[in-house]
């Protein structure tokens, strides 16, 4: 009897690809542990670097920037690893042999990168608060940092996934990813640092800065993710 095969919907294929990444992480815990430990070490380094400066600077003004340095560096580590499994044993070719819209591979990989980075942020943001903000008084609007964190993490994961795919076959891919990633993510980073700092400091006009920055970050996310979606077939086939 011939085997019954019906091409699944794009959403089902997306779900299958995403579930595979999560299952793999469940077995290895590689992404979460390496990103988590790295983030903790960066926090320790920040602590050591700032310990000698005591009262000569305003930690509230700096904390937004420090937090995003932590997120960007940690995400680079995860992005570099996210495709190493696909490269091993030619697994990516196995996926490309399947009749599917190549953009689904982008969406699924970007989603898993987003989830891993968000999980690490869930751990590190409270620690960051504990290390750097308990000795001072952040504004009551502090909780609003959730939104720039979400918008920034979505953008970092989307842009980073495209670039990780581009650099997967290049020599010195780790450095290459960083060299391409930092300039491309800069506008997003700038807007997120601005929004994060605004709500931590809580000046009179902080809401205006906050929403303007979020608008810039959100707009950049939409443009870059749509661009990645459109370009992905070409990038992954090359």
């Amino acid at each position, binding site marked *: 009897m*011939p*085997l*019954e*095969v*019906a*091409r*699944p919907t794009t959403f*089902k*294929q997306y779900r*299958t*690809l995403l579930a*595979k990444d999560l*299952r*793999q992480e469940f*077995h*290895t815990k590689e992404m979460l542990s390496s990103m988590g430990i790295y983030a903790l070490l960066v926090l320790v380094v920040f602590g050591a670097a700032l310990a000698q400066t005591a009262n000569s600077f305003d930690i509230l003004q700096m904390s937004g920037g420090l937090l995003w340095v932590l997120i960007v560096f940690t995400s680079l580590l995860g992005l570099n690893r996210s495709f190493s*499994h696909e490269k*091993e*044993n*030619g*697994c990516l*070719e*196995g*996926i*490309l*042999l*399947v*009749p*599917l819209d190549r953009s689904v591979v982008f969406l699924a990989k970007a989603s898993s990168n987003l989830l891993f980075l968000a999980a690490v942020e869930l751990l590190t943001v409270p620690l960051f608060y504990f290390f750097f903000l308990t000795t001072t008084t952040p504004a009551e609007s502090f909780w609003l940092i959730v939104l720039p964190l979400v918008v920034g993490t979505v953008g970092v994961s989307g842009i980073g996934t495209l670039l990780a795919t581009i650099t997967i076959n290049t020599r010195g891919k780790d450095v290459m990813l960083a060299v391409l990633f930092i300039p491309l993510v800069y506008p997003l980073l700038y807007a997120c640092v601005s929004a994060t700092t605004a709500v931590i400091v809580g000046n009179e006009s902080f809401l205006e800065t906050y929403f303007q920055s979020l608008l810039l970050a959100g707009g950049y996310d939409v443009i870059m993710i749509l661009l990645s979606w459109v370009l992905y077939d070409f990038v992954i*086939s090359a």
Partner: protein
Amino acid sequence: MASPEPAIAVKSLTKTFGNRRAVDNLSFELPHGAFLSIFGPNGAGKTSLLRILATLSRATSGTVLIRGIDVRKEPDKARDHIGLISHNSMLYPDLTAEENLLFAAQLYGVADPAQRVSGLLEAVELKHRRLDQVRTFSRGMTQRLSIARALIHDPAVVFLDEPYSGLDPHAVEIFDGLIAAIREDRTSIMVSHDLQKGFNMCSHALVLAKGGMVLFDKRESLDYQDFSQVYAKTVGMGVA
């Protein structure tokens, strides 16, 4: 009744990398159920040809039809009929054997993935290791599982890229049996460096050198001694 349309038709196929012609104006046809062995020295264009046929690479010019489907115009439709077994297993080492096969079955849209996976694991004699991570498998076991993965959607055309590479004699024996089963009702193309084995298995033989065709014929029209002399001469031509 067998369809008169060839299972695979290659017409004036060329692939260039810069100034180098990896595949140079190749044309041949294979009927349904044929088993083609491709031979040639390193750099002859065997893997480049196989990658184009498997839709993993685009030809610079020329046409490939898989069961009448143009792989350039309708790659997804062609992929429904293609399975690839390579020296790369395409298996995730951290997933179990069952998870790897279920993943592939769900991506292809196999109607009853669990049953299909169970049947294939039994066929490749790995059912007892279904819950073990692929990382713990020997090379031979991994290669058997990669056969199951390639056949998960029951493709009509199977490409084998040096499938025997790295296997010990016992694994080769098991693998021979599996390949014999694959051939039934399928069209297969195998890239091989083992002249005797590839010749014995095939219904058609193709020898490539510098991307071009040196010889293409049915095995029944070929004498192994003459064939091996042609091959030795071809290897003497060196790489492209």
